[in-house]
């Protein structure tokens, strides 16, 4: 398959990944992945979260070493031991964040790295500005060279990052969600630049969740799922619906317990909620119900949960828990007292103190329960920890074992135990099973179901559609901060959910 947009070539691919295998701690992240990108081609790399796109990018840019498989540049096998060796061979990846240094000038940003022109160690300012200007001219950008990069608009920052890649003579440019923070008109500008680079023969790998953009810009696309490349196609030969159904695939699910038979009273009412990344969200959740929330990364799912938990403020709207209206700007502690508990997205940095024991972690959210007049009782702590460890079947040597020594699944159970000891009326869970083995996943789904059956309203955010459908009774989908669709989970259709997630309501 060597057809690029219209031209048939015998030219060797600019970048080729052959049979790449990579596993982490025995879990296969990539199981024999193929990717082939021609010079002068914009090639989309698509797949759901966790499909393996970012692992693949990290391998071709030298950040990870593959367990087996080959990377070829212009037909020659290369072995990247580091990011700089990949860079030397002309492969550069640009990520959404971190691509510019805000506190130094535009010119310095463009020439950052080994390319600062200098004489005897003193930076040659004039030559630096001249060379930076050459690169920006190539992109037809007029950005003041002396300005601090942090003062630029997002699109200008993107351009500076691209210019820097070109300054290191990039022949393969990998862009990860380059348009995430840009407006429509800015996107048009970026596309024009990318097309110009394509005409110069640069190979571009374009990772995006925005399928419309892919169809507007790209020549070919490769779809990944569960660590495998499913198909590579000319964009002209396919359509969005086909791409979505290929991305989703199918998997049997005996993982999930039966759904709720009856739903109880309203536990949580959210009306007109406005905040960072959350626009006018209203919904209700009921006792006994598991309410799933889906949407793409950055759609405001996590922020919605954080606002509900008091971890992030909101501008407008009301939150009512079991008949009590929460005061605006209530901190997490107050919201917990009202019965709303959050199991956060990032377990290791938000959920547990890794160097601290299981019992201390559980006690932390329950200090008033285990103390009297400000003095903690170690007996009470042991009791509450024992109860939690039994209820959740946490596997550990003892309650005094540091949480950092436990497996991911058991760490997640500690976070749950900590919050369940508060007997929440509403339990918010952000990615409840991320990074957890399948066995423990099933346990957590069962537990969620038991909690709901006992009268808790469970609200769970998930990026994985099968999980979202399997564990929930009802599903809300978010798109750019608002709820773009509501579906009953029973018999829910992946494609419908995804089209809501992409903001394509019919």
């Amino acid at each position, binding site marked *: 398959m060597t057809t690029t947009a219209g031209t048939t070539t015998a030219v060797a691919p600019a970048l080729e990944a052959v049979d790449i295998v990579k596993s982490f701690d025995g879990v296969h992240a990539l199981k024999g992945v193929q990717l082939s990108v021609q010079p002068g081609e914009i090639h989309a790399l698509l797949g759901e979260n966790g499909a393996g796109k970012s692992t693949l990018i990290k391998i071709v840019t030298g950040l990870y070493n593959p367990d087996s498989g080959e990377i070829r540049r212009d037909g020659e096998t290369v072995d990247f031991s580091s990011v700089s060796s990949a860079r030397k061979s002309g492969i550069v990846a640009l990520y959404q964040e971190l691509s510019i240094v805000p506190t130094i000038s535009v010119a310095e940003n463009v020439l950052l790295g080994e390319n600062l022109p200098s004489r005897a160690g003193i930076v040659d300012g004039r030559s630096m500005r001249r060379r930076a200007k050459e690169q920006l001219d190539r992109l037809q950008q007029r950005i003041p060279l002396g300005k601090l990069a942090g003062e630029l608009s997002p699109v200008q920052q993107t351009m500076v990052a691209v210019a820097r890649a070109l300054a290191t003579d990039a022949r393969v440019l990998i862009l990860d969600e380059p348009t995430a923070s840009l407006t429509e008109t800015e996107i048009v500008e970026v596309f024009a630049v990318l097309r110009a680079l394509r005409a110069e023969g640069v190979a571009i790998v374009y990772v995006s969740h925005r399928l419309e953009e892919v169809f507007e810009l790209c020549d070919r696309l490769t779809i990944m799922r569960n660590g495998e490349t499913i198909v590579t196609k000319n964009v002209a030969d396919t359509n969005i619906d086909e791409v979505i159904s290929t991305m989703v695939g199918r998997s049997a699910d005996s993982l999930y317990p039966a759904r709720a038979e009856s739903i109880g009273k309203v536990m949580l009412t959210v009306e007109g909620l406005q905040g960072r990344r959350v626009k006018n969200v209203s919904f209700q959740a009921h006792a006994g119900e598991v309410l799933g929330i889906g949407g793409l990364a950055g759609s405001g799912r996590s922020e919605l949960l954080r606002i509900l*938990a008091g971890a992030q403020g909101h501008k407008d709207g009301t939150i009512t828990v079991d008949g009590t209206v929460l005061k605006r700007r209530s901190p*997490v502690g107050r919201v917990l007292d009202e019965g709303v508990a959050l199991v956060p997205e990032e377990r290791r940095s938000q959920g547990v*103190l890794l*160097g601290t024991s299981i019992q201390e972690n559980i*006690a932390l959210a329950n*200090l008033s329960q285990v103390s009297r007049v*400000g003095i*903690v009782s170690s007996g009470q702590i042991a009791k509450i920890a024992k109860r939690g460890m039994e209820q959740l079947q946490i596997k550990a040597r003892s309650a005094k074992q540091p949480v950092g020594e436990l497996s991911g699944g058991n760490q997640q159970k500690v976070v749950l135990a900590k919050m369940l000891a508060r007997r929440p009326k509403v339990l918010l869970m952000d990615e409840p099973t991320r990074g957890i083995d399948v066995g423990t996943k099933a346990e957590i789904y069962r537990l969620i179901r038991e909690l709901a059956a006992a009268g808790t309203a469970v609200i769970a955010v998930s990026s994985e559609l099968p999980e979202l459908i399997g564990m929930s009774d009802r599903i809300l989908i978010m798109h750019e901060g608002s709820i773009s669709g509501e579906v009953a989970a029973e018999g829910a259709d992946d494609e419908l959910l995804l089209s809501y997630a992409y903001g394509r309501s019919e």
Partner: protein
Amino acid sequence: MTNQKESTRTTAVALQQSSRRVGSVLISGSTVFALILLILFFFAMRPDTFLTFVNVRNILYQISILAIIAGAQTIVMVVGDFDLSVGATSSLAGAVTSVLLLQEQGLGVALLAGVAVGLAVGLVNGVLIAYLKMSAFVATLATMTSVVGIAYLVTGGTTVFGMPAEFNQLGQGRFLNIPLPVYFAIGISILIWAGLKYTTVGRRWHAIGGNVEVARLSGVNVRWARLLAFTLAGVISAIGGILLAARLGSAAAEQGADNTLFSVAAVFLGMTVIRSGASNLLGTLVGVAIIGVMSNGLNILGVNAYVQQVVTGLIIIAAVTLSGLKTRER
């Protein structure tokens, strides 16, 4: 079969853990070991003077004020911050109390005023850092500068003395032939130790020092807890400063200044004592003892005071390197 596999795995894990434990004991033991070595060294050099009752009492007397101020520093460092104003605060508190006594105010009023000064400086630090989100470095450096200035204003730039005997007695008196400041230091240390270990506030401080975000999402009111830590540090430093003025029988604007860096050094030294590498009061006291023994021993050997200062700097570097090793080991 699975049982056997399981049991070999357990043994392997246990072995690994015990070897890790040995390693951590070596590293954590090294600070205590260094203290013992120092004591042995000075004892060997001056067997007739160093380990006598009088000299040991002397060392305890000398380090009691530092122990109190290092205790204050420990609290702030458990929360993951530090306080550069503890020394200045202690001087100001000593000066305010002394000047009020010279103006013939009652002892109770003067002592309360001194403690109130510490409370005020601590509150300002806490508000700046916890609520106005200044960095602890900038905020406490700034308050330190101003507090030193106020202390000069209060003392009129001179050393004030001639306070009533019952005040000086607090710092110079003895009970069972041991100076009173030693008892104060022991009492305050026990309170801080118990507070850090057994109170809900102590748990919150530890959690914040471990990971602010985890603490916040667990319902800890982080700002309030940090404000409390700085306020308490101010109060405790003030008590240390008042005792110093009583011990010396005089007050000057910068007489507690050395204690700031020594207190940070002691806490750093103490962080190497426990496995988790966190600030802890017992470790801090070991650190205080190292600094005290060092200074006393070098004095006995007749080493120049400036050389002593150089050595102290080297000890701080050694301490920070050691605690760095520990964190890397985790």
